[in-house]
């Protein structure tokens, strides 16, 4: 039904729900992300809601260069986000590991593990830049529909994804981040 598809596409674009995950960042980008919900920048005018559970979200916003501890958590959370989804890498750390380049505690930029749709550079990026990134990700999400993103995942990520489907509750995040 074309009308239903158009309505679904429009709704996906105008109702992006975020889940924010920190994979070892200095918290600068996290602070700017929640600053984008403040009255000056007000991400809610686009329908953005910061959700508490990955299962509720469409867009996964990840900050931080990916530390070794966080790799498994990123795979777990990415698998827990359902349906049409998009990933936004906030800050220059997930895109290129920024100043932590060649550090032995890190495991590469984010797109080594999961497909990233939008990169928002900056150290930290301004809240208005983050909102632009989220709006672009919502557009990509709406256009993508129900087709999963084409990924060039590394071998490690593929073998992790082939593990039995992850329906287990979210206790795992708590373990990894503590």
């Amino acid at each position: 039904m074309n009308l239903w598809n158009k309505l679904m596409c429009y709704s996906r674009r105008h109702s992006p729900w975020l889940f924010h995950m920190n994979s070892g960042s200095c918290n600068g980008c996290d602070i700017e992300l929640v600053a984008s919900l403040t009255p000056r920048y007000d991400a809610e005018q686009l329908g953005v809601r910061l959700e508490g559970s990955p299962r509720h979200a469409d867009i996964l916003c990840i900050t931080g260069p990916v530390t070794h501890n966080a790799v498994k958590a990123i795979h777990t959370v990415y698998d827990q986000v359902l349906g049409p989804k998009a990933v936004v890498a906030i800050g220059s750390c997930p895109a290129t590991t920024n100043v932590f380049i060649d550090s032995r505690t890190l495991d590469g930029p984010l797109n080594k593990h999961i497909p990233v749709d939008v990169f928002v550079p900056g150290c930290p990026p301004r809240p208005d830049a983050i909102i632009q990134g989220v709006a672009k990700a919502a557009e990509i999400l709406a256009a993508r529909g129900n087709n999963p993103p084409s990924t060039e995942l590394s071998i490690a990520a593929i073998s992790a994804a082939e593990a039995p489907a992850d329906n287990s509750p979210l206790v795992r995040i708590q373990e990894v981040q503590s």
Partner: protein
Amino acid sequence: MNILSMLWKNLWGGNRTMLFPARPTVSKGYRGLVKFDPELCSGCAICKFRCTARAIEFKAAKGEFTWSYDPGQCTFCGRCVEGCAEHALKEGHTEHALSQESAPPPIYLHSGELKHAYTVKRKTTVKPAVKPDASPAVGAPAPNPATGGTQ
């Protein structure tokens, strides 16, 4: 009751939101994207050494060099600009090649999309060699600029 009067003022005083996609102007000292002027660059590569994030790459070749910059890698600290300005002052110039524009970097969709490179021909800064004076009574011969100065 303070909070209620605050809410009342907010309700009737209008919102303070910038409607998307308007963006606020940055402040005066904002450290944004690094701008490179190929005309003024002397190829000293101090910016590459001072860069904290290895966003600047410098490759020297015969008679030219390639300077490249990746805003996605950059942390916008400004050390490259400081180093360039210091070096230019030491050499007696008033202008230097690097500056930081007050523009935040744009969002991009593919990794490495924002990286750009310039290939600059080296300028000749070395003066041509001069024959030393024939008279030995002058004392020690004046240092030959062609061989005595450092590059």
